[in-house]
């Protein structure tokens, strides 16, 4: 048996972000630190008949310019977002897959709702025009593995690839599967997630989940940890991270190491088909186990990037989970959730939270909770109200998925770039 190397801590060497907050990582980060609210009325279709009319959308995104017209014809918007983010991440990492053995790189993305726009269009054509009208690309555009498969083909990546689905926790779980893959000997993995659910049918489906905001006022749309929290708005976007074995990153002279994946754990509430348990102990347990995995204690954590669901009951559960996991330290750890500015991108949202944590470590600044005006004091948390300049060495990123998924990831600064780990 080729033993996995349990002590190996993969490092993140590249970040690519395409989100309502910006096309490109730096644009996203500047907008996030400035606290710019990007939630707006839906423009991709007339949403007036739906109870949710707000979303975080990406304006000015030119998929054909970034990926070529042929690929764009064959794929859905979520694949465009994921693949365009991948181009940015590879460039940021100065990682050229063609310069390496084809088996040395894997793609491990999380998926959410798949190819909504493509799928709705082709079902529409089948039922209104008949089977001859269905695109030859439907079979490869709609399914949840489309973005991973297309990315593997575009960049010639033959390593063990994966697609994990855990609703909004997926971005973190893709990083966990990337870690397992690297520990088994693949030097580099593209991880992350994309989501594009702003079509009439996908929106209708999301509304039935019971957690979307019904406000038509952008400022009231998604307010994590606020007294007036009333659900979230959906958002679209793609986030890719380049994750590497630290020794291979050093050997190729990777220009930067954002941080190492120091710890991870996941639990499931297993309490209800839709709702989390009213007792947050399993969420807390994910955080506690992630700390054990990282060989760290609560006092070591410099910031928590929270799930920030934006509903009073879920925010309350999250605050209680943090208190359970952190004990006396809970009130002293800065907690943030900048996604209040843009909405929730399903699995892409937790990948974005990981990207935000990496940028915080890089720049020594914690972004504020997005769109927070009136934090509920009963949470007894240090909710970050303005960008806070402070050294960040250890960041915990938490995410929850519909139905009871809990994931916790710990990212830690690396002192000397590309510290070897045999």
């Amino acid at each position: 048996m080729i033993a996995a190397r349990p002590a190996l801590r993969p490092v993140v060497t590249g970040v690519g972000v395409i989100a309502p907050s910006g096309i490109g990582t730096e644009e996203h980060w500047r907008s996030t630190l400035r606290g710019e609210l990007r939630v707006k009325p839906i423009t991709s279709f007339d949403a007036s008949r739906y109870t949710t009319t707000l979303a975080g959308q990406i304006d000015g995104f030119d998929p054909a310019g970034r990926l070529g017209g042929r690929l764009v014809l064959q794929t859905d918007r979520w694949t465009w977002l994921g693949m365009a983010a991948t181009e940015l991440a590879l460039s940021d990492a100065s990682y050229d897959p063609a310069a390496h053995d084809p088996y040395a790189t894997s793609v491990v993305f999380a998926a959410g709702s798949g190819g909504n726009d493509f799928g709705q269009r082709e079902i529409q054509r089948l039922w209104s025009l008949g089977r001859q009208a269905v695109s030859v690309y439907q079979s490869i555009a709609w399914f949840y593995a489309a973005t991973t498969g297309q990315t593997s083909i575009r960049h010639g990546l033959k390593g063990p690839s994966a697609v994990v689905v855990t609703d909004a926790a997926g971005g973190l779980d893709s990083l966990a599967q990337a870690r397992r893959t690297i520990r088994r000997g693949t030097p580099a993995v593209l991880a992350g997630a994309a989501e594009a659910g702003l079509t009439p049918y996908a929106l209708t489906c999301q509304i039935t989940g019971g957690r979307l905001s019904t406000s038509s006022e952008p400022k009231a749309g998604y307010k994590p940890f606020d007294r007036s929290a009333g659900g979230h708005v959906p958002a679209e976007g793609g986030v890719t991270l380049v994750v590497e074995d630290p020794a291979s990153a050093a050997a190729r002279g990777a220009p930067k190491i954002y941080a190492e994946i120091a710890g991870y754990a996941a639990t499931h509430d297993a309490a209800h088909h839709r709702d989390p348990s009213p007792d947050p102990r399993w969420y807390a347990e994910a955080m506690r186990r992630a700390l054990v995995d990282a060989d760290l204690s609560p006092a070591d954590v410099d910031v928590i990037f929270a799930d920030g669901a934006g509903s009073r009951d879920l925010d309350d559960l999250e605050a209680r989970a943090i208190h359970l996991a952190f004990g006396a330290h809970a009130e002293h750890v800065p907690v943030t959730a900048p996604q209040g500015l843009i909405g929730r991108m399903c699995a892409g949202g937790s990948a974005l939270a990981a990207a935000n944590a990496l940028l915080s470590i890089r720049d020594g600044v914690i972004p504020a909770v997005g769109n927070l005006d009136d934090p509920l004091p009963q949470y007894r948390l240090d909710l970050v109200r303005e960008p806070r300049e402070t050294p960040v060495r250890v960041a915990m990123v938490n995410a929850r998925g519909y139905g009871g998924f809990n994931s916790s990831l710990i990212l830690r600064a690396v002192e000397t770039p590309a510290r070897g780990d045999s």
Partner: protein
Amino acid sequence: MRRTAITGIGVVAPGGTGSKEFWHLLTDGRTATRRLSFFDPSQFRSQVAAECDFDPAAAGLTPQEIARNDRFIQFALVAATEAVTDSGLELGGDADPADPDQPLVAVSMGSAVGATTRLEDEYVIASNSGRDWLVDPSYASSFLYHALVPSCLATEVAYRFAAHGPAHVVSTGCTSGIDAVGYGHQLIVDGEADIVIAGASDAPLSPISIACFDAIRATSARNDDPEHASRPFDATRDGFVMGEGSAVLVLEELAHARARGAHVYCEVTGYAARSNAFHMTGLKADGLDMAVAISDALRQGHTDPARIDYVNAHGSGTKQNDRHETAAFKKALGQHAYTVPVSSIKSMVGHSLGAIGAIEVAACALAIENRVVPPTANWARPDPECDLDYVPNIARDHDVTVALSVGSGFGGFQSAIVLDRGSDAR
């Protein structure tokens, strides 16, 4: 070194619900393919399918479980219940995270297309048969979010068995099932779980699924002879026959299984995946990347290729797949490829997309258990490019100690898993 045992098996497949019915079908060499009956298939190029005669209420599901879940989740709940019962484990009830003696129970379930059927059915209503792009939300059923994101499969299984460890759905197209079992094995080896409820489910038999494979002519059009339409490795094969179903396995850390005196069907000793990075649907004839995956899976368990007693092929029955795969076996196993029995159960139960990989792992475990190799049904005319021993039409008594199962899927995914009866001496 932590090792993975299979201690429970549950199956819902065309031809019968339950692993016993499933095994009887395979060893009788019967086929469960027929003319599509769920809807009028006459407009489609391919009108054949392997359908499950499945009654969720009779299978023990509650009215609410049936109401909120697409058929693919219903299958999985029934298969998982059979597997957990078979394992003898008592799962469920209140669990305390602080109890160090409590085994960590994880869920790793695969699905290629999730709740496609329910999403399409509901879309037809909300869009008024595709007339309205702006679907009418007042016609939306309450459980559409439960259909939109397929992670609900893992949630429903975790909820039923109070599994509080890591849970996920794996969705790598047609290798989802083999990959879900493979990731479950990794969770046990790495100490992330002691028990994993692992398997896969798909129920893709809806008009849009038939239409999208019609469009690329991947499915069989042998509409005048549905019982013999799935013909892996036969010279007259003309595409796969879409199926549906689920299989769930209880994976358990070997020492944990032994300590409670559980029946161990076999061990998982290796799992590997590679991508061909070539084409979303096309395969190169050389079988290279599948061969690399096979070799890696064998290496993990220090398994000499000559020890393989049975190869469960992907064997979808498309022209290109069966050629590709035959080449892969020759590359990875050398001369042994010509003597080892190779068969495709898709000849009997069809191709249930993401589910079939788990169903095939179940078949391999049952082959080891019962010392019988299932046949490739409908094999009549040899193809010069497919020149291995495909166990034509009749099951064969054969002492299987080591079995290899492989999968290949859209997106270029190639996966391999090795099962071994195991022994303490090894």
